[in-house]
């Protein structure tokens, strides 16, 4: 029987494949006029799924975003709105 004895997994971060975005009922939408890219949404997102390229705007990774709404509540500029997902 082929297996790594003890069940050790030799590949890290496999959960990257899991599209937890399907859990959402509401999705966070950033108002670019109000957002100042302070990155508090990233600091306080439990899953840490806010990304940005150097010098560019923050982006929410909707593949993973579970729609918990913490970013919307915590944004100091109220720049995030939780919008109901379409069916």
């Amino acid at each position, binding site marked *: *029987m*082929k*297996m*790594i004895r*003890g*069940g050790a*997994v*030799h*590949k*890290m*971060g*496999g*959960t*990257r*494949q*899991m*599209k*937890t975005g399907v*859990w959402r009922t509401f999705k966070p939408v950033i108002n670019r006029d109000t957002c100042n890219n302070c990155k508090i949404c990233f*600091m*306080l*997102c*439990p*899953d*840490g*799924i806010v*990304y940005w390229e150097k010098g560019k705007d923050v982006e929410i*990774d909707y593949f*993973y975003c*579970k*729609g*918990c*709404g*913490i970013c*919307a*509540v*915590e944004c100091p500029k109220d720049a995030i709105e*939780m919008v109901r997902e379409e069916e």
Partner: protein
Amino acid sequence: MNRMFLSGSEAATEGVKLSRVQVISAYPISPNVNVIGTLSEMVNDGELDAEFVNVEGEHSAASVIAGASAAGSRAFTASCGQGIAFMHEMLWMASGMALPIVIAVTSRGIGIPQTLACDFSDIASERDASILHFYTETAQEVVDSIIMAYKVSEHPDVLLPSFVCLEGYRLTHTYEPVDVPTQEAVDEFLPPYQPKHAFLDPKYPIMQGTGTVEFFSHFKYAQHEALIRAKSVLKDTFKEFGQKFGRNYDLVESYRVDDADMVLVVLGTMAGVIREVVDEYREKGVKLGMLKIRIFRPFPDEEIRQALKGVGKVLVVERFNSPGSHGVTYTELRSALYREKPLVSAMVITSAELYHEDVRKIVDMGLDRNDEFEEWYIEDIPDKVLQAGGWDNYQAICQGKEVEREDVKDVKSYIAPGTSACQGCAPLLALRHIADAMGDDAVCVYATGCMQTVTSGFPLVGWNMASAHFCFTNVASAGSGVKAAFKQKGSDTKVLVLGGDGALADIGFQPLSGAVERGHAITSVCYDNEAYMNTGVQRSSTTSYQARTKTTPGGKQEFRKDISRIMEAHGIYVATALPCFPGDLVKKIEKANSIKGPAFVHVLCPCPTGWEFDPSISIQLSRLAFETGSWVLYEYENGERTISRLPKERKPVEEYLKLQGRFSKLTDEHLAVIQKEVDERFESLTSGASTKP
């Protein structure tokens, strides 16, 4: 008699209630949670007059009921898997002391791998502990077996503990109509427990639990004899039960065995499916039969011989294999049938779910073959699952090749996205900051709990850091072993020991204290969500006063155990933190890592599921914990306390509590008591302490 629609778990609780159990101990381990949760409600509602004791581990769960039984009371607990393993010593102690406790084993496999699948390894591993084994197939059998177990266990000719096994999920979580006996009828059948051999009465002092070398074998003989006598006590009890309640049981149950060419032998719920396949084959003219073993200890060898007389082929459908030898049922059955010499084969299914199609395959193999065989009902792990688990990497290092670890190159965090944590999970937020603060020369050892469950399912794991999950009970001791290994090799690799409040303040507290006392330079972090959340919200020692959980339906009566203060008493660096101040948390982790000795960081993490609030305010709640003084942010080192941050104006604790559904039944009186406690603790921590500049 009342006809009720019950799950196996609920049936067990009906049995416990009708048996008028006096002391119940409770420790959550899925899937026993509905048994202990329902019993907790029954006691809280006054339906059952029993002492309900929430303990800090299964070792204590068994000890509490052994103590109660030694004091002359009827006692009960439910456990399974590694919980049974953790109470191993107590089981031998209890049977040695002749204490007739009854334990419902909501059977699940003993980890590692951590599992919820049932393969009877928990109960079968205790088969030599002089305990009676009842295996049940239906919820009906569960309620009946609990009642009968007390009657048999407490019989003067027996005086041994009993296990009543109901399979995890298959039986605990499925529903069926059950005839529940009336209390009057059970009272007539099962009198109160009035031991003559073991009790604790100051007016008639006796001494229990003696030691002996020369007479040790006599005690063992007495236990063995008691189990042998238990067979006739069981038969008498079954007969009496049948007369009184109309359901006839026996040590084994034969189904269409009389003229069978082949008989399948089984324990537990599988009998349900197998019985139907037997009928199916009989329709086709194939003479199939089934023998269900209901009582496994004492082993019913004579009854098996009688039932299988003249049968040519016996096929054991085996759940529990003894590695390096043969299946447990198979070995004992084969030994019982030695003289009759039928062909006895085994199909080892371990924890597999058997559907009709599976049983047909097994039957067909048995019918086809004319040799004695032992096969495993198992398929290879699919290649894509192996690959996902890093099979390629493993093969490469086995062959001495250099491995390009694409999976860890360019990762943004040591905790990968896509883990199955709840929406708004504050422990996950804390974890990703903590893990990332560990730096690139660190490993993490973590305990069973929420953060373990959501990140360590095979083969897709949520870690990008070298890490290991051992048990619930031992994260600190396993972590100190890891550190010792690094130390011996002269490596400075940091070790993060991560556990929840359950793992570090309760079941794993002794190892934490030991590891810290020994001075290993490990950073222990407790993510405290104030309950056993992973198993469905049962109270822990750090659950807040008056909080509602599944095992404190009327609100917790005790205040939080102040685990930080206890760790301070060990003379080490202790810091408290909150997920709303990630910068502060990271600094404290870095400080803890820089210390040449043990360090303990305690993070309060709100849990939307367990505390009952909208996930979006998870961080806001932790901020309110700070602003109300319910959680004080500080560092303690060398006898000095430094407050990290103080709220400008302390808010009333009600602002923090009113947002949490678990406090919805708080009275003004409770609130006043809580406010007083918060005020006193805040005062005692902050007065005389220096404040960070």
